[in-house]
């Protein structure tokens, strides 16, 4: 086992898959000599050449459309969006075209394409370098949406995504890139797209989260444990498909549900998790379903004071767990 950061895990997965399969290639802005602005492809151009590590013009819609066309031909493109904030000009190709290519041709076409998107805040990115973009993709049938939280998940899930014949939106939380370290097996492994992971078992309150805030939930769970509150933390890992079984099992056990994410609360992933529990675990619920999420303002402002005011934190999560436990 080697300890590595999330970005190292991403790089390692990409490198292994490009070695394994010649049809796999990366494309995007500055992925070549620069190795990507987060260095996910550092050194790749030396190993695989400029064709498989392709610098594109600054034009996101075409990055996605071209990747999609190459996928139709049997390539396995991994287009990179430099920051999630810049995915918007390309979403027609993703949710309109890529997500519907298999369905809309009655199964004739496959789309073996993995879209890597660094997303999320807490890094002083301000309104246009911090966005959470998962809700739209989550709402789009035909896509898979993956949100790893640790190096282990990042590597194992990215490898599965690349091997999948469906279009995968692979969301990497920017703040975890260097912040989160963890053990990663030395030997080849993949993790299945779909299953959530119970990162901490508990019996009083279920806390569902993903990405960066999942780590804050773990910290909060550790804190409230000192007060004798046992919180179970479910890391969704994959948003689409949503692992309703794991969520419901946990809620049936604890009777109390808190959902935490950094994305704006209204219409976020938390709403679907809440709706799921309010329907299918209704008889088990012992308290109102709570959500602790980003407020409904356009993502994290730049000033440190405002960014802090936006983000869920271990402290605010702990307070919410305590409130639910006491209900």
């Amino acid at each position, binding site marked *: 086992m080697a300890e590595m950061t999330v970005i190292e895990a991403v790089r390692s997965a990409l490198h292994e898959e490009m070695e394994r399969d010649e049809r796999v290639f990366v494309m995007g802005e500055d992925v070549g000599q620069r190795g990507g602005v987060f260095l996910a492809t550092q050194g790749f151009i030396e190993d695989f050449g400029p064709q498989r590590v392709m610098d594109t013009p600054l034009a996101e*819609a075409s990055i996605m459309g071209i990747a999609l066309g190459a996928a139709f*031909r049997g390539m396995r493109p991994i287009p990179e969006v430099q920051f999630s904030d810049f995915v918007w000009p390309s979403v027609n190709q993703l949710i309109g*075209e890529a997500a519907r290519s298999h369905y809309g041709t009655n199964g*004739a*076409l496959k789309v073996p394409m993995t879209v890597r998107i660094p997303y999320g805040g807490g890094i002083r990115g301000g309104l246009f370098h911090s966005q959470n973009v998962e809700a739209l993709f989550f709402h789009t049938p035909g896509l898979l949406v993956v949100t790893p939280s640790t190096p282990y998940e990042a590597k194992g899930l990215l490898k599965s995504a690349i091997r999948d014949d469906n279009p995968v939106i692979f969301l990497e939380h920017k703040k975890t890139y260097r912040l989160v370290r963890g053990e990663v097996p030395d030997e080849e492994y993949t993790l299945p797209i779909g299953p959530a992971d119970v990162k901490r078992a508990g019996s009083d309150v279920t806390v569902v989260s993903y990405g960066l805030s999942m780590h804050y939930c773990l910290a909060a769970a550790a804190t409230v444990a000192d007060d004798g509150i046992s919180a179970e933390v479910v890391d969704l890992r994959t948003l689409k498909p949503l692992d309703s079984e794991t969520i419901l099992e946990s809620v049936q056990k604890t009777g109390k549900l808190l959902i935490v994410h950094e994305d704006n609360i209204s219409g976020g992933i938390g709403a679907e998790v809440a709706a799921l529990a309010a329907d299918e675990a209704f008889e088990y619920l012992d308290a109102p379903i709570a959500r602790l999420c980003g407020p409904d303002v356009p993502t994290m402002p730049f000033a440190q004071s405002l960014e802090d005011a936006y983000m869920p934190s271990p402290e605010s999560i702990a307070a919410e767990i305590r409130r639910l436990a006491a209900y």
Partner: protein
Amino acid sequence: MTQAPSSLPTETDAEPSIATVGDKAGPALPAGLTADDLVEVCRQMILVRAMDERIWMMNRQGKVPIAASCQGHEAAQLGSLLAAQKDGDCFLFPYYRDLALKMAVGLTPRQVMLSFMGKDGEPYSGARQFPLQGADLPRNIIQISNVVAAGLTQSVGYALGCKMLGDDTVTLCYFGDGATSQGETHEAMNFAAIHKLPVVFVCENNKFAISTPQESQMVVSDVAARAEGYGFPGFVIDGLDVIACYEATRQAIEHARNVGPALIEMKVERFMPHTTDDDDRRYRDRDALDEARQYDPVTLFPAQMVDQGIATPAQIDEFRTDAQSQVNDATDFADAAQPPDASTIYDHLYV
């Protein structure tokens, strides 16, 4: 890079050449074409026109929810396709108005009619989509959607994939004048140029995007004028002239395979309203339309072939009779066919 290769038609070739073709003492057949090829184009034209008219009628009868007519575009589509077929290694990204092209690759009238009526067995999408939208992979065709211009970057990506895999395939991408306004068209052309991809951009310029005339879409008189800004050649072709469209496409395919992208602009006419949902009397000058119809390729081309002794009047008559019976058969067949089973709605969402 901004120079046209000398083998490509120059802008002066854009003069209508139907007169030349129709000239009894006309030139020898263009390179690679036989008389049989041209007779076959006559057959296809006549069949496609009969289908197109029937589809429109079926819409008025409430049996076809929507249709875009290719009337006026037949020469462009069939001439261009003929070059691709002769080449033998082309892949096509057509658009919604390319009925002639989609039929001439080998789809049967029955399949076409299933598609327009949304019945089981529909070949492009299993009747999940608008008629003839989706993919016809056995015949090298992809058209995921009718979102205007969305196919351009995809075709460029397809060409990139071909190049990466070492194929010799040339990708042809068809679109209207309206599509040239979309940002993605710019992005597609620029990328193709940078990577010298084997792709031919084929603009069927009928001078209207629904009701919006060309002068409200662009200041320049030729879409082809844009090519220079990307560093590849662009050419204006008379899109009512089968031979000119064949020849331009043939040379563009060669250029694409050996040098890089090319843009062909075929000037055509849209004889019908935009779709069956449209009423063009609100915006289209009737005299200009009547004048345009004088140059209907489906009338003129067979007549010229007869004039030139390439086809016989009897052949043309037979094509017409045969077309009507095929269309009748297709209509009856599709009318009697079942809709897809409702339970299939969840199929093929994921691989």
